[in-house]
C-alpha cells in the first residue's frame, strides 16, 4: 500500500472482553477520540498511531460474538464491515477463551480482508501453565498469529511488525473452508455466482457477502442489484422451509465444529482450566448468604468513594470560583462595563463555567471507581447478583449501579450508562436516572422541611421523598418497558470473566477521557442552558433580576394557572425555572425572587406546609438539571429520547404533585 495516500484503517474486532480496548489504548496512547456510532448510543473510538512510514487509524469496535447480529452492537460491527471494510482486521483472541473467540475469527477470515490475529492474555495463560501451539493456528487460519499481553505490553513489537508486514504486502486471507449442509452450500454458491456476475464492487469475498445477505432481513442496504436481492429472498424462503432451525444457527454449528477442532489442536489436548483464584473469590462474592451483604457493603463504599471524596472537592472548586469571580468583578476594567454586561459575564458565563467545573471531580471519581469495578471483573458479578431484581424492569443487573449512583448525582450516572451492554438497557436506564433523588435535590428538601416542619417530622418527610423516588423509578421502568421506548430487550447471556487486577494506567486513562469527553460534548450545552436562564431572569435590563417584571417572572405568571392546581405560586414557578440550571440554586433563587432578607419568614407566611410538599414533589420528579439533559443528549444521541426524558419528567412531576395536593385539599389539609 502507498504511504502517501490515506491513513491505513485497522479495525479491532473480537468477542467482548478479550482486550480490544486495552490494546487500543496501548497502540494509540493519547491520540484518540470517541463518539457515537450514527443512530445508536454505542461508543465509537478511533485513534491514530504511526507504523513505520505509514499512519494508521485504529478503530475500536464494540465486542461482538458474530457478524450475524443479535444485539445492536453486533449490528454496528456487521454494518461497519460491509459498508466500509477496513484495510486490515486485527482480531483479538482471549487465550483463556479460545473456542468462543475462534467462532468469530473463522467468520471474519471468510471475508478475505487481510487479517492479523493477536492471542491476548498470554500472561494469564502462562500463569495457569498452559502452552499454546500458535504455529498450528497460523497454519490453519492462513494469517499471522501473534502472542500478546495487552496489559503488560509484551509482544507488542511483534504485533506491530506483523501489521507492518501485512500493510506492505497485503494478502487476501484464504479462509479455511467450513463445510455446511449441502443445501446451504448450494445457496451460497448460487448467490455468490450472482454477485460475481453483477456490478457489485466490493473487497469482500463474494461468498462472505452472500452469507451476510442471507442472514439479513433486507438486502437493500448493501445492494441495489435486484437480481441478487431476489435470488437471496428466494433462498431465504426455501431455507426457512427446509431447515428446522434458523440459518445463522445452522452456520454457527458448522463454524463451531471447526473452532472446536482448532482450539483442541492449539491446546494440544490440555483441558480448559478455570482460574483457581476466581473460583475461590466467587465462592465469597457470590455466596448464597454473604454475596448480597458484601455487595451492599461495596456499593456503600463506592457511593462514599465517589461522593464522600467528590463533595469536598466540589466545595473547594466552588469557593475558588466564587473568590475568583468576585475578584475579577471588582477590577476597575470590569466595573467600567455596563451593568447588564457585567451580569452577563458573571451571573451568566462565569456561573455556567462554574457549573461545568463542579461536575469534574465527581465525574473523574465516578469513572475511576467504575473502571476498577469493571476491570476487576466484579461488574459481571453485580449483573449476576442483581439480575433477578432488574430483570422485572427489563434491565440487566448492571443498570442497578448506574441508578444507585444517580442518588448522588444524575450526571455521571447518566454518563455511566455506557458501560451497560445493550442499547435497550442504556436508554431505559438513562430515562430512569432523572427520578433518583440526587444530593442537589436533597439540599432543597433539607432547607424546606426545616422551615415547614418540626425537627421530629422533617426526617420522615425526607424519607418519604426517597420512597417516592424509588416508586417513581420502578413505575416509570414498568411503563417504559410496556411502551417499548428503548426497543426490544436483548437476551441476557453474559460471560463471567476471571477476576483481574485493574491497571492504574487503564483506570487513569478512562477517568481522563471521560472528563475530556464531558468537557467537549456536554459542557457547551450546559453553558448554553445557564445562559438561557440568565437571559430569562435578567431581561429586560431595566428591572431587578428575577423580579415579576423579568421574562422569567412573566413566564412564571403566565404559567401560574398551570401550577395553581398544584399549590405552587408564581414565585416558586420561577424558582423551578431556575432549577433547570441546577437544583443547587433553587433555594438561592427563592431568596432573590422574594427579594427580602428574611427568606424563611417570608416563605412560611406565603406558603403552607402542604404547598411546600407539593413543591418538593415537583422538584423531585421534574428534570434534574440542564447538565443531566445534556448528558442524556450526548449519550443517547437521540432528540427523541432527550425529549421523552424532559416531557415525561415534567408530566410525571405535574401529575404527582396535582394528585398529592388535590387529595390533600380533599382531606381538609391546605
Amino acid at each position: 500500500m502507498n504511504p502517501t495516500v490515506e491513513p491505513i484503517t485497522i479495525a479491532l474486532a473480537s468477542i467482548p472482553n478479550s482486550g480490544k480496548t486495552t490494546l487500543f489504548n496501548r497502540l494509540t496512547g493519547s491520540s484518540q477520540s470517541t463518539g457515537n456510532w450514527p443512530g445508536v448510543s454505542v461508543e465509537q473510538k478511533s485513534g491514530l498511531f504511526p507504523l513505520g512510514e505509514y499512519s494508521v487509524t485504529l478503530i475500536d469496535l464494540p465486542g461482538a460474538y458474530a457478524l450475524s447480529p443479535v444485539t445492536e452492537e453486533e449490528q454496528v460491527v456487521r454494518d461497519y464491515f460491509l459498508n466500509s471494510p477496513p484495510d486490515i482486521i486485527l482480531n483479538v483472541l482471549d487465550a483463556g477463551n479460545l473456542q468462543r473467540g475462534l467462532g468469530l475469527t473463522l467468520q471474519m477470515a471468510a471475508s478475505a480482508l487481510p487479517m492479523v490475529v493477536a492471542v491476548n492474555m498470554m500472561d494469564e495463560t502462562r500463569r495457569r501453565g498452559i502452552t499454546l501451539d500458535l504455529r498450528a493456528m497460523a497454519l490453519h487460519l492462513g494469517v499471522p498469529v501473534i502472542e500478546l499481553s495487552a496489559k503488560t505490553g509484551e509482544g507488542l513489537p511483534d504485533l506491530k511488525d506483523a501489521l507492518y508486514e501485512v500493510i506492505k504486502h497485503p494478502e487476501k486471507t484464504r479462509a479455511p473452508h467450513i463445510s455446511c449442509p449441502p443445501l446451504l452450500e448450494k445457496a451460497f454458491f448460487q448467490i455468490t455466482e450472482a454477485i460475481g456476475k453483477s456490478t457489485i464492487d466490493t473487497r469482500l469475498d463474494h461468498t462472505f457477502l452472500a452469507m451476510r445477505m442471507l442472514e439479513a432481513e433486507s438486502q437493500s442496504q448493501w445492494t441495489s442489484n435486484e437480481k441478487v436481492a431476489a435470488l437471496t429472498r428466494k433462498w431465504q424462503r426455501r431455507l426457512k422451509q427446509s431447515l428446522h432451525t434458523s440459518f445463522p444457527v445452522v452456520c454457527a454449528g458448522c463454524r463451531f465444529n471447526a473452532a472446536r477442532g482448532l482450539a483442541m489442536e492449539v491446546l494440544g489436548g490440555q483441558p480448559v482450566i478455570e482460574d483457581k483464584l476466581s473460583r475461590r473469590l466467587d465462592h465469597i462474592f457470590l455466596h448464597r448468604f454473604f454475596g448480597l451483604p458484601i455487595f451492599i457493603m461495596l456499593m456503600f463504599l463506592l457511593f462514599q468513594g465517589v461522593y464522600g471524596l467528590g463533595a469536598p472537592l466540589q466545595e473547594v472548586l466552588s469557593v475558588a470560583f466564587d473568590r475568583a469571580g468576585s475578584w475579577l468583578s471588582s477590577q476597575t476594567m470590569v466595573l467600567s462595563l455596563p451593568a447588564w454586561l457585567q451580569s452577563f459575564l458573571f451571573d451568566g458565563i462565569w456561573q455556567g463555567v462554574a457549573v461545568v467545573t463542579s461536575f469534574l471531580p465527581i465525574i473523574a471519581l465516578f469513572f475511576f471507581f467504575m473502571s476498577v469495578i469493571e476491570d476487576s471483573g466484579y461488574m459481571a458479578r453485580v449483573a449476576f447478583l442483581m439480575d433477578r431484581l432488574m430483570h422485572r424492569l427489563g434491565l440487566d443487573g448492571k443498570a442497578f449501579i448506574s441508578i444507585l449512583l444517580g442518588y448522588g448525582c444524575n450526571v455521571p450516572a447518566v454518563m455511566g450508562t455506557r458501560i451497560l451492554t445493550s442499547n435497550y438497557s442504556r436508554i431505559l436506564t438513562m430515562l430512569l436516572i432523572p427520578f433518583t433523588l440526587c444530593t442537589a435535590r436533597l439540599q432543597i428538601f433539607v432547607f424546606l422541611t426545616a422551615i415547614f416542619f418540626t425537627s421530629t417530622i422533617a426526617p420522615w418527610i425526607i424519607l418519604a421523598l426517597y420512597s417516592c423516588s424509588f416508586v417513581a423509578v420502578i413505575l416509570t421502568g414498568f411503563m417504559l418497558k410496556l411502551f417499548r421506548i428503548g426497543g426490544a430487550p436483548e437476551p441476557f447471556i453474559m460471560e463471567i470473566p476471571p477476576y483481574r487486577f485493574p491497571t492504574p494506567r487503564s483506570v487513569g486513562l478512562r477517568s481522563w477521557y471521560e472528563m475530556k469527553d464531558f468537557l467537549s460534548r456536554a459542557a457547551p450545552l450546559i453553558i448554553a442552558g445557564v445562559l438561557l436562564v440568565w437571559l430569562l431572569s435578567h431581561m429586560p435590563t431595566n428591572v431587578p433580576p428575577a423580579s415579576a417584571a423579568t421574562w422569567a417572572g412573566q413566564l412564571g405568571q403566565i404559567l401560574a394557572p398551570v401550577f395553581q392546581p398544584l399549590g405552587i405560586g408564581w414565585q416558586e414557578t420561577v424558582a423551578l425555572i431556575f432549577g433547570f440550571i441546577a437544583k443547587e440554586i433553587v433555594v438561592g433563587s427563592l431568596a432573590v425572587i422574594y427579594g427580602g432578607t428574611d427568606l424563611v419568614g417570608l416563605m412560611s407566611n406565603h406558603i403552607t406546609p402542604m404547598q411546600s410538599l407539593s413543591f418538593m414533589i415537583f422538584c423531585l420528579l421534574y428534570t434534574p438539571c440542564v447538565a443531566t439533559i445534556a448528558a442524556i443528549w450526548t449519550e443517547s444521541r437521540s432528540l427523541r429520547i432527550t425529549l421523552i426524558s424532559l416531557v415525561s419528567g415534567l408530566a410525571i412531576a405535574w401529575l404527582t404533585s396535582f394528585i398529592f395536593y388535590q387529595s390533600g385539599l380533599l382531606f381538609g389539609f391546605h
Partner: protein
Amino acid sequence: MTRTQHIPVSALLAHSECIIHSLGSDDKTVQRLAQMGILPGTHLQIIRVAPLGGTIEVNDGQGQNFALRQQEVAAMSCEPVAMPLISELVAEGQTYMIRDIRGGKTFQLRMAAAGLQEGSLIQIRKAGVKPMQAHFVDTNKQISLGEGEAKKIIVEVINHESNS
C-alpha cells in the same frame, strides 16, 4: 436409559449437568447461544444459582463461565447426566453412580463408613419418602439420608443402553 426433557426451573440446582439436545424456541436467545458456541451437544454444568434466584452461572467446558436465566435453560431440551441426589430429576428405580460427595471431611468420612463413596451405585426405590432411602445396588443394603445430606451428594446417570 437416556431421557431428553425440558428441565423444570426448580430442578436447575447447582452441580447439575446436562447435555443440550435443542436450544429452545426464542429466536434471539437461540441465536445468541449459538453464536457463543453453545449448541446441541454442549455439556452444561450449573455452577451456582444466584442468591435471589432466577439466574444461574453455567460452565460449558469451553472457556469462561457464563450467566443466563433459568427460563432460558428450562426452554431447552436437555439430557440430564448428573445432579444432586435431592433433585426432582432423580427417578425412582433408576441406578445412579455417586460422582462426588461434597461438604466437609467429617461428612465424607461418615458417608464412607456407611459404604457411600465415589463410584458406589445406588437406587431410590421409593420417591417422596422422608428421610430419603437410598439402596446400594451391589449389597442391597440401604441408607437413609436427610435433605441436607442428599443435597451434598452428586449422582451421575448411568446409561444402560450403552452398557449392554
